[in-house]
């Protein structure tokens, strides 16, 4: 981790993520107003000393809503990536360790999922379920495990031919010991990198869904649906769409920087390349 943070990309990514995370966790303390409190006397006030990011069409304080929206957006990102990573690691491990017909079946499943345009798939599933924050997390998770599966499988395939694994197998180690002691710990680096990058794309997908009105449902605030309201008021109130967009941009940037930085720092191959 120390080595990773000396990488400038990873450092800035980490700094952005940490500040967004702290703001989300401390939302009840930091928020100057109740995020859902409607105030008809202060509708669409531009950013000022009393309302840092202005107010929306119902007089709610946008800054407070952004803070609480951060909780929702990040929660969706983390849980969705958690689901995707879990599925990916399990399937990838099975595929790479046992090979044979089960590998063929799992890899064809990956190909099938990759050939259906993801956003269509997500929208179709949501059309058949009621949109709720839990359904969104599950659907994003269930449609984004393919990359991790391929990564873990590739790692397992190459690791299980290495001497230390062969030695352990020769000494009579059982499957579960080989998998959990030797193969899994040694293939974690690319999994970590891909989950960090995965949070970025999950946050983007959630905000896109909420923007289309198919994600987190109002009055619950998420960055995506604050933006949807901003769309309606775009001619009179730029701040309603500007701030949530910037928040999404910064958060996604943060996770991408951290992910790429970690990849550079932890992957010996790219490490050497820069020095030539």
């Amino acid at each position, binding site marked *: 981790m120390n080595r990773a943070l000396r990488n400038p990309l990873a450092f800035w990514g980490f700094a952005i993520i940490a500040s967004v995370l702290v703001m989300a966790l401390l939302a009840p303390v930091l928020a100057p107003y109740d995020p859902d409190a409607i105030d008809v006397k202060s509708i669409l006030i531009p950013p000022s000393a009393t309302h840092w990011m202005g107010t929306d069409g119902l007089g709610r304080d946008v800054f407070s809503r952004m803070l609480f929206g951060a909780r929702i957006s990040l929660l969706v990102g983390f849980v969705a990536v958690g689901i995707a990573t879990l599925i990916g690691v399990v399937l990838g491990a099975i595929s790479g360790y046992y090979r044979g017909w089960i590998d063929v079946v799992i890899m064809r499943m990956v190909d099938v999922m990759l050939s*259906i345009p993801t956003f269509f*798939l997500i929208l*179709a599933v949501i059309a*058949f379920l009621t949109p709720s924050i839990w359904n969104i997390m599950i659907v994003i998770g269930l449609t984004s495990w393919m990359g991790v599966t391929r990564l873990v499988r590739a790692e397992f395939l190459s690791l299980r031919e290495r001497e230390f694994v062969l030695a352990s197998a020769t000494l009579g180690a059982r499957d579960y010991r080989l998998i959990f002691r030797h193969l899994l710990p040694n293939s974690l680096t690319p999994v970590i990198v891909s989950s960090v990058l995965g949070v970025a794309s999950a946050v983007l997908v959630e905000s896109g869904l909420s923007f289309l009105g198919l994600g987190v449902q109002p009055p619950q605030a998420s960055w995506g649906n604050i933006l949807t309201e901003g769309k309606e008021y775009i001619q009179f109130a730029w701040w309603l769409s500007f701030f949530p967009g910037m928040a999404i*941009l910064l958060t*996604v*940037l943060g996770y991408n920087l951290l992910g790429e930085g970690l990849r550079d720092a932890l992957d010996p191959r790219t490490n050497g390349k820069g020095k030539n």
Partner: protein
Amino acid sequence: MIRYLLKRLFWMVPLVVGISLVSFLIMHLAPGDITTTEAGFNPKASEESRQKLREIYHLDEPLIVQYGLWLKRMGTLDFGTSFASHQRPVFWEKKDDQGNVTPGMIQEALPITLLINVLSLALIVVIALPLGVISAIHQNRPPDRAITVFVFVGFAVPGFWLALMLMYWLGVVNPWLPISGLHSLGYENMGMLGRLWDLGRHLAIPVFISALSGLAGISLFVRNGMLDVLHQDYITTARAKGLPENTVIYRHALRNALLPLITLLGLSIPGLIGGSVIAESLFAIPGMGKLFYDAVLMRDFPVIMGILTIGAVLTLLGNLLADLAYAWADPRVRRGVMR
């Protein structure tokens, strides 16, 4: 080449079966059957239309029979008629007894989305290639740093937000570009050039938005590919024998760095098709994305299932094309293929 093509086509069979299974599963995800209100079916829908839906998907038959019938529908590309828009056929035009032709919904929407995707792929290649090459040549120096910043920001910008901002700046504050639909009023009376100009103005922002996310990824990819190639022995040889640097970079290095790009462009097709939902619905462009979004809002199941399938088939075709192009471009694969 023919043998290679046949082999590739053969490998697509399990994928098509898988796609049919996934779409069938999605249809049966809903609690109860899809004609109930729990599934979000319009509660005001008449019993008659509900019955119709059950007939189309044979919901009263056992599951295995339903799946067989769904396979048959996929095989004949017949997805029935839409509920929401006066029984229009979902995929392709139909003639009735009097010889009146009703155009299919996907038939009309697909060329528009394809046009946008082809234009954005072209834009991606035209911009990302030079960026990637410049980045690689000036590795870790200011031009590379600047392009890297651009790449990361490009990755992170939510497309729909940028679209909204551009709509506001270029359509409302400075009304330079039209922000809705495909054609202006009076399009029918324009000359050939006028029509093209009009279409171009309508497509400018949507194509840019749809290209943006791919742009970042592909320029990074070209950069890394170039760096890999530039460190290989034959490049050193080319330099050692005194070739001008430009020849080394553009004739020797770039050509080889470009090969994997073909595959990557093929792989980016599902993302582009899926990404069309937001841009098309925001700009009211009547393509596949908007059609799909409207169908989702109306719970117009035949249209949803039809687009899902056609989208997947398009992706498969795109990947197949990319593989063939790769085989054609790389002599090593080409020779291996011929044997």
